[in-house]
């Protein structure tokens, strides 16, 4: 009797597993087709399959509802409100651009000729300044010699004053 019960429950579990696997497979198939179902682009048989599965599977039904709401945003965005000042702004923009073109008629000559000339002069000046700064100056050596001579006289103090003279002070 016990063996029969165990056998029965095992077979029930097995059947449940099979059903779950079938449902999962159907869910997977549906996930690939849902957007086309919502757009009405599936063949009739597939539409029926999806409808049936949505009536059986609450998870897929919930996802379908979410997706429908999200895609519904497209409907809301489809027709933007017409800006009544659009043409006025457009006309002002065009007029601005044209007046800019007219007022700087000399700009092409400036851009083509003077600008490169000015940049070249600045470049040459910059190079000259760099060379000048980088050149070593001979005066530095003389001052070093003088400094050395001063230090040497301090180091050789013993020559200028004897130790006895220093101690007697």
């Amino acid at each position, binding site marked *: 009797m016990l063996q029969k019960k165990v056998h029965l429950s095992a077979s029930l579990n097995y059947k449940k597993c099979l059903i779950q696997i079938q449902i999962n497979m159907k869910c997977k198939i549906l*996930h*690939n087709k*849902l*957007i*086309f179902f919502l*757009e009405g682009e599936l063949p009739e048989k597939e539409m029926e399959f999806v409808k049936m599965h949505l009536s059986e599977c609450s998870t897929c039904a919930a*996802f379908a509802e*979410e*997706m429908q*709401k*999200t*895609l519904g*945003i*497209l409907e*809301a*965005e*489809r*027709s*933007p*409100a*017409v*800006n009544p000042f*659009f*043409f006025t*702004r*457009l006309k002002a*923009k*065009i007029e601005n*651009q044209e007046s800019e073109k007219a007022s700087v008629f000399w700009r092409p000559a400036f851009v083509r000729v003077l600008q490169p000339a000015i940049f070249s002069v600045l470049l040459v000046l910059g190079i000259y300044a760099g060379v000048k700064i980088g050149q070593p100056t001979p005066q530095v050596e003389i001052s070093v010699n003088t400094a050395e001579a001063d230090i040497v006289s301090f180091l050789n103090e013993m020559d200028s004053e004897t130790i006895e003279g220093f101690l007697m002070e």
Partner: protein
Amino acid sequence: MSEAEIIKKLQQGNEKAFKEMVEDYQKMVVNTCFGMVHNIEDAEDIAQEVFIEVFRSINKFRADSKLSTWLYRMAINRSLNFIRDNKRNKWFQSFEDSVQSKNALHEKLHSKNTDHPEFELENKQRATLLHQAIDSLSENQKVAFTLSKYEELSYQEISGVMELSVSSIESLLHRAKKNLQKKLYVCYKKKCI
């Protein structure tokens, strides 16, 4: 005025014809740009550049395609350029600008339920989620999806704008929708909303 008459008068520099053209196509161009950049102010700026370009180069327009096709192409190209430039400048955009642009977008969404702020917040989150999902598509997929969903163009019309075959457009849209679905499912699993 018919399209041919408008084009003829535009080529003669007729301001009235230009105004009529802008009034006829403003909504279409702004909507297309909005579908690409998801910001109404940017979309209007890009749309203005499109019309300025039309004003300057109407003489170069060959009548082998419709005026609307030409406008769509310019709107798409300028929007894509804007997105690419924006990506480069993103690091320099202040946090306030980013939040302000998102808020301006959210205000655009007309919600009837003004007494329910939770509903509005949910709507805003969905919009952000959807835009991020659309932005994650490849350029061609995004263009095809925008023209299909925001402008409701047929496959034939989209193929005219994008200069691709109808079968390529079908394939692009199919892949775009599949990728969009994947993104939305990942978000659904993570409980983004």
